[in-house]
């Protein structure tokens, strides 16, 4: 039998329901894996007592019958989610010591469904980064390894990706503002879904760019993504942008039959200098979907090229506003003050010491593009380009396209410390295939589809219509099945 911590949610759920397994056994297996997995830097705040307490409660509930799907399932929660009484730091020094008095809506829904939180997961500071290297805790490490180098698990949800790929937990929550669920999922050979903007409540999730942020599941299989999304999604009166729409039964929508679905291949995603392996994988993915009965059509998304620059105006602008709240007054870190320092000194020193380099850079870029005289030239122009990017997708969907297939990332995982040291823009290019989806508010999923020459996982991305995560997951499962990705990282940690 496989190790309990290596089970999928679906397998564990069925075993728990049959009584073949208890949540305490499952949780203990995961806690053991978490303890043994310290070298991965995935869990940054561990909550073993809380986990066992919830596991015992879940077992009682399972015994009583009719427990929800997630009852007794051990999960990791990204550090961006506020969790009551448990450190929630967004991987930033400025939230040092912060223990929320409240629980984010998404993690509360998971808790109420009986899920077991094992602890909080590493990430880039305030979700700003694509390699987990901006974290105050130090980087999470990819369980995949091909030589002596330590590789990034991607970011910002790098700890979530590393934890799921290394079987420290059955699944994890992530958040995605420009690719922060899908890129790490692709780098670690797992499934990552960014739902439609508004599908999951943002309440209680530390805000980065509010018009782009969305929470989603990071799992071992597409089916698990459907199960976890089900529990995370839903309307929340505390988030005015959360959609008041019924949440369908996503798992029930996995039909296994995608005959007649129209899959678009956007020509603008064929980037100059793209590695041949990525291009080959993409072509292979299209072929697999065609073999499964889908119709493959070429489409055009003409403004793709402008998505990244538009994102690097809009996201920093929103971040500069959202992060204004970290002032050293109400929570978190406050700088030590000199005799005679006034309140502005307190703000400036606190923020200089509390924020890391990338966060400061983005807050200041955001401040600049919103400042008098530049607002129209930068911020308004970027919002107009965003309208055009969304229109591109609408036109593709109007032509009858059901989903769009693209590469998930422009490369496989790279070494820690290898990228963006001299030029921050180099790191930004990681999000080139994912960021359009956030700008257009669409659901997107990364599915592991193969290994590169060196043996590192590569992912493909499927993009769906708004609110149609169900049909999107259905296509994703067909791709998953055809790709038959079963490789696991060899344990070195």
């Amino acid at each position, binding site marked *: 039998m496989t190790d309990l911590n290596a089970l999928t949610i679906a397998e564990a759920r069925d075993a728990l329901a049959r009584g073949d397994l208890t949540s305490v056994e499952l949780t203990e297996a995961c806690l053991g894996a978490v303890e043994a997995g310290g070298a991965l830097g995935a869990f940054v705040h561990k909550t073993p007592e809380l986990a066992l307490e919830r596991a015992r409660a879940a077992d009682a509930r399972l015994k009583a019958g009719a427990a929800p799907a997630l009852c007794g399932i051990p999960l990791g929660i990204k550090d961006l989610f506020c969790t009551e009484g448990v450190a929630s730091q967004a991987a930033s020094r400025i939230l040092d*010591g912060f223990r929320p008095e409240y629980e984010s809506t998404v993690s509360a829904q998971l808790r109420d469904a009986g899920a077991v939180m094992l602890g909080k997961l590493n990430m880039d500071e305030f979700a700003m980064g694509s390699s987990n290297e901006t974290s105050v805790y130090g980087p999470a490490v990819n369980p995949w390894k091909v030589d002596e180098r330590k590789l990034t698990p991607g970011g910002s949800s790098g700890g979530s990706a590393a934890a799921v790929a290394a079987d420290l937990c059955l699944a994890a929550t992530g958040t995605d503002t420009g690719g922060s669920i899908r890129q790490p999922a692709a780098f670690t050979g797992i499934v990552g879904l960014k739902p439609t903007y508004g599908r999951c409540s943002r309440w209680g999730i530390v805000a980065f760019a509010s018009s782009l942020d969305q929470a989603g599941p990071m799992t071992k299989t597409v089916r698990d993504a459907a199960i976890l999304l089900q529990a995370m999604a839903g309307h929340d009166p505390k988030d*005015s942008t959360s*959609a008041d729409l019924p949440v369908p039964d996503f798992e029930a929508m996995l039909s296994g039959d995608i005959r007649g679905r129209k899959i678009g291949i956007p020509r603008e995603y064929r980037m100059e200098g793209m590695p041949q392996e990525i291009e080959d994988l993409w072509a292979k993915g299209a072929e697999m979907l065609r073999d499964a009965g889908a119709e493959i059509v070429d489409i055009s998304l003409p403004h793709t090229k402008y998505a990244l*620059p538009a994102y*690097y105006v809009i996201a920093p602008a929103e971040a500069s506003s959202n992060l*204004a709240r970290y002032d050293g007054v109400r929570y978190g870190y406050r700088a030590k003050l000199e005799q005679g320092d006034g309140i502005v000194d307190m703000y400036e020193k606190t923020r200089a010491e509390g924020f890391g380099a990338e966060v400061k850079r983005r807050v200041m870029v955001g401040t*600049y593009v919103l400042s008098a005289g530049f607002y129209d030239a930068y911020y308004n122009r970027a919002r*107009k380009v965003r309208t*055009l990017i*969304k229109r591109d997708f609408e036109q593709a969907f109007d032509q009858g396209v059901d989903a769009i297939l693209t590469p998930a990332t422009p490369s496989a995982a790279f070494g820690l410390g290898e990228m963006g040291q001299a030029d921050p823009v180099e790191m930004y290019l990681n999000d080139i295939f994912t960021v359009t989806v956030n700008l257009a508010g669409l659901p997107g999923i990364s599915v592991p589809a193969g290994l590169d020459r060196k043996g590192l996982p590569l992912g493909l991305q499927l993009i769906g219509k708004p609110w149609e995560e169900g049909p999107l997951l259905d296509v994703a499962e067909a791709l998953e099945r055809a790709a038959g990705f079963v490789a696991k990282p060899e344990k070195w940690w």
Partner: protein
Amino acid sequence: MSIDTRTAAHVAHLARIRVEQDELPALAEEFNRILGFIEELNEVDVEGVEPMVSVTPMRLKRRDDTVTDGGMPERVLSNAPDAREGFFAVPKVVE
């Protein structure tokens, strides 16, 4: 559009982030790199295009203007770096 150290210092102050004098040239250089990347947006014809306000067509919900929460000053203050007598404490504000 090129950013000099004076502009960099101004932006840092607007953002309430202390940047030491000797760090300003490097900061200005980074800004210029990022803004150079953003300049690409000038190629796009945005004539007559509305700037996006909401990515999904939705009307913000309204609710009754009533108190739904509160009465927990200790919990509100529980994470403050400096709280005294039921208040957040900060350095002197009035000169």
